[in-house]
């Protein structure tokens, strides 16, 4: 591996790691989701620093140009991350649906209660089937 490639890859990996840690520090990224990024950035950094391991991995895989292994790892990682986020998005979608459903049910309950009791929740509340907003 030429030195330029190594320097660039070390730089990028380190920047990624620092960026992730900084985002966590600012609470822009929650720890939960940062974990997978930190693992990835560290792995890339380790491979960039430790040339022997990269070359070992390249020869084991039958890859002639060792930096290509870095790309391979990166691609693999991107796939894993996007799958992981699909799972997260599915879970959130389900949660949102449940929330919307619960809200609709509660909304109906509140309306019914107000209709039955004629109760006003706050000043200016038009008790007749009217949403507070």
């Amino acid at each position, binding site marked *: 591996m030429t030195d330029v490639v190594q320097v660039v890859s070390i730089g990028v990996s380190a920047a990624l790691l620092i960026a992730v840690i900084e985002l966590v520090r600012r609470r822009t990224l929650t720890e939960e989701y940062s974990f997978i990024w930190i693992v990835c950035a560290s792995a890339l950094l380790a491979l960039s620093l430790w040339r022997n391991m990269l070359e070992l991995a390249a020869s084991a895989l039958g890859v002639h140009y060792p930096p290509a292994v870095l790309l391979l790892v990166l691609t693999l990682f991107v796939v894993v991350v996007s799958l992981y986020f699909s799972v997260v998005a599915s879970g959130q979608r389900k949660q*949102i*649906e449940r929330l*919307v*459903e619960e809200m609709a049910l509660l*909304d*109906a309950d509140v309306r019914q209660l107000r209709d039955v009791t004629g109760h006003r929740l706050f000043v200016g509340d038009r008790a007749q089937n009217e949403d507070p907003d």
Partner: protein
Amino acid sequence: MTTAPPGVSFVIPVLNGRRTLRVALDAVLAQRDGRPFEIIVVDDGSADGSLAMLQERAAAGELRLVRGPGRGTAAAINAGIREASHPIICQVDQDVIVHAGWLTCLLRSLADPEIAAAQGQYIAKPGAGFWARVMGRDLEQRYCRMGGGDVDHVCTGNTAYRATALHSVDLLDERLGYGYDNDLSYRLSRQGHRLVYSPEALSTHHWREEFGTYLRQQFGVGYGRLDVVARHPMRVRGDDVSGILMMLHGPAMLLVWLLMGIAGFAAVAGRAWLPWASAALLILGALAGERAIAGAAAWIRSRDRAALGFPVAHLARDCAWAFAILLWTARLVMRRHRGPSHSMPRRPAVVPAAAARAARGAISPGSLLVVVPAFNEASNLPRVISDVRRALPAADILIVNDGSTDDTDDLLRSLGVPWLTMSQRVGVGGAVRTGIRYAARRGYQYVVRVDGDAQHRGCDIGRLLVPVLSGHSHAALGSRFLARGSGAGLRRMSQSALAGLLTLLTRRRVTDPTSGFWLFGPRALRLLARHHPGGYAEPELVLLLSRNGLRVAEVPIRMRPRLSGRTSLTAPRAVIALARTVLALVVVPFRGTVEGEAGD
């Protein structure tokens, strides 16, 4: 003669017969000659407007209209015969136009008390299409050989029977889809009754025109014939109308297929294939030659060039028969075949209106909730509500407004029914799930799901209730296949692919998995409050319920045409639903059941 002439009852089974029905009825009415006379028309569930026409004529006193049981032609004819009050019963089909003097000729034959049935002669309509003419000329040619007098088979559709004889053999066998007339004739003969053919009694038969229907009909005829032969083994040699030569055609064609198959395999394996292929061609040539001779004879007699098409048309027919033999045998081998059965897909019995009404009456207030998921259906909702209220006053209604962008929201305040508003659009599956949760919290035992487009009729809710109230099933699905027929392209194709797939998966006949008309019983509600699938969910619902051991009954219903707005089942949606079901086919067996789980 001093005694009064015997009265005559005409029995006409009708299913979607508007094309020829009016002419056929007029022709029958023209047979009146002063003797006691009645026409009984059995409507077996027409959806093409025949029913309205019949009701009109029934109101005018021309005929008596009977609702058929919806279990096929034999059952419909039987229903008519049971209603008949005169000693002579003329059974005429909806596409048969009897000629003047038809009745007089047949009654002359029936004057001999030993004779139980007399059949007239069919003639083909002169201007009909090729396939109809082939069908007609073939039958003509066969009858022509017989001359007149005693026969061992009379067809239905063009025939006068003695009522006592029919009742002595317990009418037609309703389990047969085709060939019930052969079965009846053989049973009558065995009891010592005489059957005659009266060629002077003429009628024009409007055969089906298209090649596809011709083949399908021939498949049914072949299949029915096997059922008949299974009951009357001696009849493997045929009867006076269909002789031994004709009976040989189906098996011979099957033999041709077999030889061709062997020749193909031999050719692939590098063996000698020529002997097999030539044997096949020889048999094929013999079949075609026999038909060519019959065709030439028919041509000389009738001068109709369609008769020269016999070899081609009848080889196609033989293929249909060979296929019928294959399928019939396969079912027998697989033990799917409990005795002779229907050749055609059998429609489940329509729930009688009285039973549906009783079921609606059995619902107490506060036990049934009608959930109406609605997305931009403001123009249809008032009609849905008034329709349900009229049909089922004891039911409560809940509208689930799934993020509509029209004025549904404002409308809801004025409708006087409870409603839910989804603040984000969650799809019809989520909307129904919310409705079910609402019902579960308030202690309802049954939930009906009706679409917001007013296509589902409130009175059909009773039909859905029947199987669930009786404990026969846990949920019921309204299937509109009775009123169907004009499905378009991709959407219809994926719908039927879906139905086939789900039938395979659930091992129950599913015909309309995309229907939005459902009734859920208590056990289904407990499951669905948590696990009702989201999105465009109907097909998965069938699968989910059956995987969890809940029985789903399909009930035939009719739908109103959509009055305004657009359907949500677009072609892409239908394809996506199909894809999702295919995925479920792979995934669901590994997923196990969900009932009783804490949730996901």
